[in-house]
């Protein structure tokens, strides 16, 4: 049987983006002010990457 190993080259970036996205979605719920700003910064990452990918295409 093949050993299941985490392929970080393949899944590293998607995992990082997912964690940062979920963090961003939750922080704005936790409070106002600094929490909102953290949320905007975190969620700008996936949005920015998506648009970069789009314009590269």
């Amino acid at each position: 049987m093949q050993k299941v190993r985490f392929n970080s080259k393949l899944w590293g970036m998607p995992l990082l983006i997912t964690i940062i996205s979920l963090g961003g979605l939750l922080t704005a719920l936790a409070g106002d002010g600094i929490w909102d700003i953290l949320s905007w910064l975190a969620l700008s990452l996936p949005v920015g990457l998506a648009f970069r990918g789009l314009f590269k295409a």
Partner: protein
Amino acid sequence: MQVKTAKRWFLWHKWTSLICTLFLLMLCLTGLPLIFHEEIDGWLEPETAATAPAGAPRISLDSLAVIAGAVHPDLHIRYVFWDRDDPGKVGFDLSPRPDAPVSQSHYVSLNAFTGQALPGPKTDGIMYTILQLHTSMFAGIPGKLFLGLMGILFVIAIISGIVLYGPIMKNFNFGMVRKHKSKRLRWLDTHNLLGIITAAWMLVVGLTGIINTLSDVVLGLWQQGQLKEMTAPYVGAPPAEGKLGSLDSALNVACRAAPGMKPTIITYPGTIFSSRHHYAIFLRGSSPLTSRLLMPALVDAKTGRLTDIREMPWYVNTLFLSEPLHFGDYGGWPLKIIWALFDLITLIVLVTGLYLWFARRKAHQQQWERLST
């Protein structure tokens, strides 16, 4: 992953997507203006803020209720509610019967300092139409549940899409888009890249959307569960009729029992949110999180005594917390912009997915034609 396994995931991805794509396109297109509904509402119908003359005291709720009642003498007040952003504004919902459908509601919005009528919520505007389309496609509860089913397919499509990302991308770097090979490869890579980047957001908005479609189910569970328990001592008692007790003293009693909380709505006896004997006063906290969670306080509508106050059960709180996570209205205007951009990216993922299906079909057909000639 074995080719056979990948193929099975691909079939799941293909069919769940194909079935829900048309509805998801509609949801994304109608959802886009709904993200900004407050701004658009204010722009279509400039709202008058309830300004208070210097030093003016608030008018009692009971007096405001008399003013609201006089606007529609043939109807009865069933809900009193406060504006989230404008505490000087008090809204009244009047209808022929306490348990009449929402469509029979008439709204009166009053300035709590002067008693003057303000433009109230509208139910015939373009935004209302878009909202109906988005939540139920004008088909009531069945329409809502159907969209919930489409949401489940959407979530399966996302999960199978994530699984397929592995075998497709295992020999490439993250962010790879094959620009000059062929149109199909270019859009395939774009579909995969945008899909994996926005998967977390799409899953959250998809799942919370599904939960929102269950709102009527949740209401029914609450009525049959907690509300029934809270009103158990009143089973068999004659309904509260005739002149009811003071709204102000009911509100005071409730607020004293929950220090630091603010009222959002008072529901009258006989409505779907109360018993036939109580004013139900729903209180909320003040942080972004606790302001979404409500606490019902039941006040005997005749005697004005508080009979019970409780926190809501987990399934109601789950519904309440799903709302902001679906609407994106909990982190100021920058979060709304981010929501809109995610919505646009989702649209691109849907459209490229559809295109890829067409392109594959065409390629298959040509292959067959070549074989048979």
